[in-house]
């Protein structure tokens, strides 16, 4: 009983960063394989966790949107492959499209022509990988409260974080504005579709958004946003020197590392690495010192507890295992065509990704009064989903 996940409340809320690490782990694993069965398994794992632990908050609907986006990408990849051809050599010609003759300077580009089964399968695998990546990111979006993630930024970046939060709460009101103005158009007897309608609604919506942002800015100012603590001039100057110097050092270091492969040779690596490392350290120190200027404190920040370690660790474990178990089975061949098999060990390596569905706190019932549905079948469905 003690091991069962508790009901989610603010005090035991899982750190948003943990969800992101978990999802990024799955995404890294997805990027290492083109095996459709393995990719399907990864998507299924992420989907199961989302279904088990998603709340009914607005951002939780992101998963569906990302799934659709993934499918669209997959479809687009196939269409491009059919239209533009592919360098994959293949012998199973499915259909031959009329080829558009292109002028000499466009050599190497083909429009239309032969479509082979091999090229389609290759495009399918490739598109599936992209789609799986997107869906994993969508899972993080659906599970982690984006506002809370931004709140975890360090103090010196607080202003940027608030800008992000305000922007996010803005999007839904913008949508509501569009709806309201479209109904207003209807009330005047105008049609609500067409390009003209969009243009005529667009301007008032932007106007409204601008007015609202001014109002929010006034409210934030009146509530003490941007109050600063008095900081001695020396500390301020030191902050500036540290931040600028650090960034400069990072730039030099990265230049060194990038040129190391070319003309710079060994010398590039020689000064590149230490420069980049020192620069990063200086810039971090600058950020930390800069945080002193802000007087602000944090209300109930998310704590990184055992459950957060388990969730983040499970995702990273999947990534590490798939990276370690690299085998030809992860990249089924397309020439010649063969049915992809499910490699046992990598498939088992994906399963730890299910852990969050058991350890993360369970979202509670919505606080809003839910009317009792009249249809009893519906009621049982609802329980199954919730």
């Amino acid at each position, binding site marked *: 009983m003690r091991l069962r996940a508790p009901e989610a409340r603010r005090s035991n809320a899982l750190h948003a960063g943990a969800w992101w690490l978990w999802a990024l782990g799955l995404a890294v694993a997805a990027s290492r394989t083109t095996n459709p069965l393995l990719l399907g398994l990864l998507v299924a794992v992420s989907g199961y966790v989302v279904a088990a632990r998603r709340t009914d908050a607005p951002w939780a609907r992101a998963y569906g949107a990302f799934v659709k986006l993934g499918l669209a990408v997959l479809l687009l990849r196939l269409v491009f492959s059919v239209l533009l051809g592919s360098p994959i050599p293949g012998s199973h010609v499915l259909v031959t499209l009329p080829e558009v003759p292109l002028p000499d300077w466009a050599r190497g580009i083909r429009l239309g022509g032969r479509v082979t089964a091999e090229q389609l399968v290759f495009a399918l695998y490739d598109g599936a990988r992209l789609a799986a990546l997107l869906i994993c990111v969508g899972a993080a979006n659906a599970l982690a409260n984006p506002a809370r993630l931004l709140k975890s930024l360090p103090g010196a970046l607080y202003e940027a974080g608030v800008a992000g939060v305000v922007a996010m709460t803005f999007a839904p009101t913008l949508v509501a504005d569009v709806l*309201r103005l479209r109904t207003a158009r209807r009330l005047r007897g105008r049609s609500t579709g067409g390009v003209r309608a969009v243009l005529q609604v667009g301007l008032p919506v932007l106007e409204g958004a601008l007015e609202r942002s001014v109002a929010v800015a006034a409210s934030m100012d009146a509530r003490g946003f941007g109050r600063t603590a008095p900081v001695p001039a020396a500390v301020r100057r030191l902050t500036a020197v540290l931040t600028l110097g650090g960034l400069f050092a990072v730039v030099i270091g990265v230049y060194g590392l990038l040129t190391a492969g070319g003309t710079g040779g060994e010398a590039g690596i020689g000064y590149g690495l230490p420069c980049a490392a020192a620069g990063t350290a200086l810039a971090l120190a600058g950020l930390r010192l800069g945080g002193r200027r802000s007087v602000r404190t944090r209300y109930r920040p998310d704590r990184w507890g055992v459950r957060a370690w388990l969730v983040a660790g499970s995702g990273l474990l999947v990534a590490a295992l798939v990276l370690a178990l690299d085998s030809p089975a992860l990249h089924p061949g397309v020439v010649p065509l063969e049915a992809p098999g499910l490699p046992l060990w990598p498939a088992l390596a994906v399963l730890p990704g299910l852990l969050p569905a058991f350890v993360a706190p369970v979202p509670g019932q919505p606080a809003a009064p839910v009317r009792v549905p009249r249809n009893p079948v519906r009621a049982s469905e609802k329980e199954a989903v919730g």
Partner: protein
Amino acid sequence: MIRFENVSVVYEGAGAPVLRGVDLTVPEGELVLLAGPSGVGKSTLLNAVCGLVPHFTGGTLRGRVTVDGRDTRTHRPRELADVVGTVGQDPSAHFVTDTVEDELAYGMESLGIEPQVMRRRVEETLDLLGLAELRDRPIATLSGGQRQRVAIGSVLTPHPRVLVLDEPTSALDPAAAEEVLAVLQRLVHDLGTTVLMAEHRLERVVQYADRVALLPAPGAPVVVGPPAEVMAHSPVYPPVVGLARLAGWEPVPLTVRDARRRAAPLRERLADSPVPVPVPAPFSAPVAAQGSGGGVPARGPLARLLRRNPASVPDAAPLLTVERLAVRRGRVEALRAVDLRVAPGETVALMGRNGAGKSTLLGALVGMVEPAGGTVRVHGLEPHRTAPKELIRHAGLVPQEPRDLLCSDTVAAECRAADADAGAAPGSCRELVSALLPDVADATHPRDLSEGQRLALALAVVLTARPPLLLLDEPTRGLDYAAKARLAGVLRGLAAEGHGIVLATHDVELAAELAHRVVILADGEVVADGPTADVVVSSPSFAPQVAKVLAPRPWLTVAQVEAAL
């Protein structure tokens, strides 16, 4: 605590100053009500307290404003944030974060208050305002009253010594308004908070005020005094004061209770006179009983403009028939088995708490919401299957925010667009505007009109298509008493010409003055439907003040009593 010394405010580009020579001192722990017609600079005065005027809005402020000894000239709004908490007219524009609890903590975070202290104060404030159930809710899902309470809570948590509120109850239903006012009362009594608030609906707030600061006209000096004294001569006053002036009670009672104790002789005098019908029922109109409302002057020009002959209208068929209407939003049943009939010339008031389904019902009547069951017939048409261009000739809706309806940048262009939309003869809309708003220039931008003028313009735009059924959603929000009286006159005139009118409103006084019938919605169902007097007199929250004073007989408005005396 708050001190204005000879303060004048001029906005750039405006000729006359908004405020001129204001001297006002609000001592600690007092609740001061700022009253006055719209456009006299109430909001400007309130925003000057927290420094938003002039630091944020621009303009020039002369004189000196100090709060708790801090001069707003040298202190920016953020440096006053720990002494002054401000809630503007629109609480939605106030929120920075997305959940209730974060919103309550936001101000404290900015001030750098210790985490343990923040936690304690958030819990206290949740209890004080009755928000504990809502702590994790996204703000977007809250009702109007809940939002207003969250907005007040969010400025309370830093423990400001001064609270400044701009129309805190205007958008709320009567019960939610009581809730908010009870909270304010508690703050003043228990915590010694100084409160300065502006409100148009004096009948709701004047009895809570320690003193009233009246701005009688733009640029006029402030009159400050005990509520009873100021109300005796104020150009804006609640119905109970109107009754007192009529009956000659001195000093003026401000609460229904005080008025009742004085009203025994008046009740006796009225005991034998028959209660006149507040608004004549359609087509049985005893003209003498119309009272002193503005219906008569509005009738002439409007009737001509609308080319509607009052005598020819009375056909018995209802304009609007709603039968067992159901509307669903997702899983939620927004309306369930709603029946409604509106005859030509009849005015129906839809009442009920925020979120009861009033706006949804109006939306269904103009086809913006598709019914999930039941039927809606407007003149025999099904609204959601009718093209918008055709529908506006049968039913017109003035939305909650009349500005949404206006899309041009001058009044003249707006009128031309309305003529084109309705297929009416050029100039018809402008004639209506001239009848409703006698002194509005063609080149005025709709945004520069006052709330009342904007409402009149939107009403003219809707009437251009000459719909026999007129729907208004919350028309008196932000209107002062004068604008409300003008609106009532216009609507009465329209009803007399045979328009069916449905208005969704929280304003019990308006409903009492205008409506033949009141329909009360609760939780998406009709819980009461009957003649105004029958429905409202017995209800504690929907009864107008005059009815409460003169109960048990169904007197509803001051005008009725005046006609009977």
